[in-house]
């Protein structure tokens, strides 16, 4: 069965929790004891029937405040596909948690309330989804019942969002008019939208093509060197070392010419074992290969550069400035780095880019040049999600403070 991961995002009160509850309920993913618990809680709070928003209730603090603080993961499947939902928070102060959920998602479903239309949060979520390279955006225009299922209102919001998506370079946007509360156009078609001939939300999620990130030439960031027999006492053999890792692209073939980066030494694949993408390979030559190195196609290797130009989403209170010393984790290697230049910052409210900035603050997105202590083999994020991404780690606190997406494969800004 195929697995599709999608993130849901929206402003407070756009009905995101209700929509997820509706999807889970109508695909029979909710078990009886969960339904009983939701019914009991609904009644205790003075409601009637099932308040589906309670299904995604997670933390005590979230129940107290009626908001989503951190991403929660939910699971359901249909005869056609299985799904992981990353239910992400809408508040600007929890943007890092939204980005956490969206970074592993194939699709982003952005909710808007049909009465209010697009809001700053909608723009922020669309911009972050685009930044993360999500190829499919779904605009779920919710609470259509509260605008009398007006086609004109739906078209207005859809067109406004389409214009926005064009500026963000999002390839595919699908807008769906729905009502999570009564379930219209979520799993089953609504009788109120004879003017809409597109798919219901679930049908769309079941049929859109699965994005593939692992196409292209061989890229294997080495996680571990496995020496057969070590630790097992007797019977240590002279067998070659294995290099274990998760393929970032391509499938290694026995006999294939490879290059080890950043050293640049060449060899051939001698053996491959494991289930892709989690594999281990042996090389024909005894080379010095260690964790952090990348085994790549010798004829189509990534650029190995000492300087990276990247789009960065900043996630810490302490801002990033030119001259800031940080750690970058790229693939399986962590290196020291310094931010040498801040080029611009994106204003998510207007989607305008401002130059001449001197810092990147919490929840801001900008373009930054880093110089690294060791050259890194990189591809552009648009080409390869793994080879084109890194996280920024604060050396003092150990916290993850930023997410970087490589803008230019050549690394050096012009």
């Amino acid at each position, binding site marked *: *069965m*195929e*697995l599709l991961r999608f993130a849901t995002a929206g402003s407070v009160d756009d009905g995101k929790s209700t929509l997820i509850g509706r999807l889970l309920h109508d695909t029979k993913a909710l*078990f*009886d*004891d969960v339904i009983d*618990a939701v019914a009991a*809680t609904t009644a205790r709070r003075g409601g009637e029937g099932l308040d589906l928003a309670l299904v*995604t*209730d*997670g*933390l*005590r*603090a979230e129940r107290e405040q009626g908001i989503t*603080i*951190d*991403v*929660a*993961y*939910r*699971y359901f*499947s249909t005869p056609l596909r*299985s799904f*992981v939902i990353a239910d992400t928070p809408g508040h600007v102060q929890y943007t*890092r*948690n939204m*980005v*956490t959920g969206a*970074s592993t998602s194939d699709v982003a479903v952005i909710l808007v309330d049909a009465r209010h239309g697009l809001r700053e949060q909608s723009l922020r979520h669309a911009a972050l989804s685009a930044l993360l390279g999500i190829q499919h955006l779904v605009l779920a225009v919710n609470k259509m019942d509260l605008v009398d299922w007006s086609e004109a209102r739906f078209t207005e919001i859809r067109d406004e969002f389409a214009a926005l998506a064009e500026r963000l370079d999002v390839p595919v946007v699908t807008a769906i008019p729905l009502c999570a509360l009564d379930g219209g156009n979520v799993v089953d078609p609504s009788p109120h939208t004879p003017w809409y001939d597109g798919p219901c939300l679930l049908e769309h999620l079941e049929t859109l093509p*699965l994005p593939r990130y692992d196409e292209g030439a061989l890229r294997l960031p080495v*996680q*571990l060197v*496995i020496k*057969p*027999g*070590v*630790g*097992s006492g007797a019977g240590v053999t002279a067998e070659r070392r*294995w290099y*274990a890792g*998760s393929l970032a692209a391509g499938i290694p073939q026995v006999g294939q010419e490879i290059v080890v980066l950043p050293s640049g030494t060449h060899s051939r694949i001698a053996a491959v074992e*494991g*289930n*892709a993408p*989690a594999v*281990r390979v042996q090389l024909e030559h005894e080379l010095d290969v260690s*964790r952090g190195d990348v085994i790549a196609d010798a004829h189509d290797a990534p650029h190995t550069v000492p300087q990276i130009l990247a789009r960065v989403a900043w*996630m810490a209170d302490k801002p990033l400035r030119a001259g800031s010393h940080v750690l970058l*984790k*790229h693939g*399986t290697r962590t290196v020291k780095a310094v931010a040498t230049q801040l080029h611009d910052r994106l204003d998510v409210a207007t989607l305008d880019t401002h130059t001449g900035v001197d810092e990147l603050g919490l929840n801001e997105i900008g373009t930054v040049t880093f110089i690294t202590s060791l050259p890194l083999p990189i591809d552009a994020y648009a080409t390869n*999600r*793994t080879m084109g*991404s890194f*996280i920024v*780690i604060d050396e003092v606190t*150990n*916290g*993850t403070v930023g*997410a970087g997406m490589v803008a230019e494969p050549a690394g050096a800004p012009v």
Partner: protein
Amino acid sequence: MTVIDQTSTEFDDADRVGLDHRLAQLEAHAIFVIREVAAECERPVLLFSGGKDSVVMLHLAKKAFEPGVIPFPVMHVDTGHNFPEVIEFRDRLVEQMGVRLVVASVQDAIDEGRVADPGPTGSRNRLQTQPLLYEVGRNKFDAAFGGARRDEDKARAKERILSFRDLFGQWDPKNQRPELWRLYNPRVRAGEHLRAFPISDWTELDIWRYIAVNDIELPQMYYAHQREVVERDGMLLATSEVTPALPGETPFVETVRYRTVGDMTCTGAVRSDAATPLEVLTEIEQSRITERGATRADDKFSEAAMEDRKREGYF
């Protein structure tokens, strides 16, 4: 869903990758996480109860380091009220796999006065946190692999793959580290540690499909057998020294199996004739009750029972 096809043991691994996008992705991701933590942390340990999720974890760890050996020990938090057949199975599997077993004993914690004695029949479930953290500290473990799954509970649904624990072993759910892509940040300072959950995204069905496909042995109590039980709070509890029948309860023999394996005082059985992994799969697909709802008294206290225990440092 064509489960029978996907779980047929006739498929070899190569077929399965082609046929089952989902299970192949889940396995590869789990192996990736296990390798990352083993490579970056100084002293990892794998939490191992003998239950199905931890057995799958041990199997994945073996796969991650083949043809080498698993480079870390396993740790069992033993309430002293475990099913004897599970302890026997634990010892046998650990021996087979050639890994070292560390036992964090609740009984020792009681005897040494580290936790209060709940009495001979009291639940020792919540008492597991102290010996767990005690052994983590004593052995200087900086990462503990767990077999928790996000589909088990709403607090678990919120947790990262790598989840940070402070000096006191506590989880702060309102301030979790961002976790981008598959770029895990396992950095901790001395005294802090991580919990790593490589099978976070697996469901109960995935676990059973994986067990069926890979022919993984489990304690026999996961399959239908005859057992003397009493019915209490809607659950079937095995009668034993620590779970005697209460006044007014009449023990009876029933054909049952366990969906989860935990402390005897709070783990219930379900009526079942499922005797093989495939039969269990069929049964779970038709089940309308979650595994914890069906069989765990400890999760029924409040809406936030698991969250509260996790904050204190529980699994």
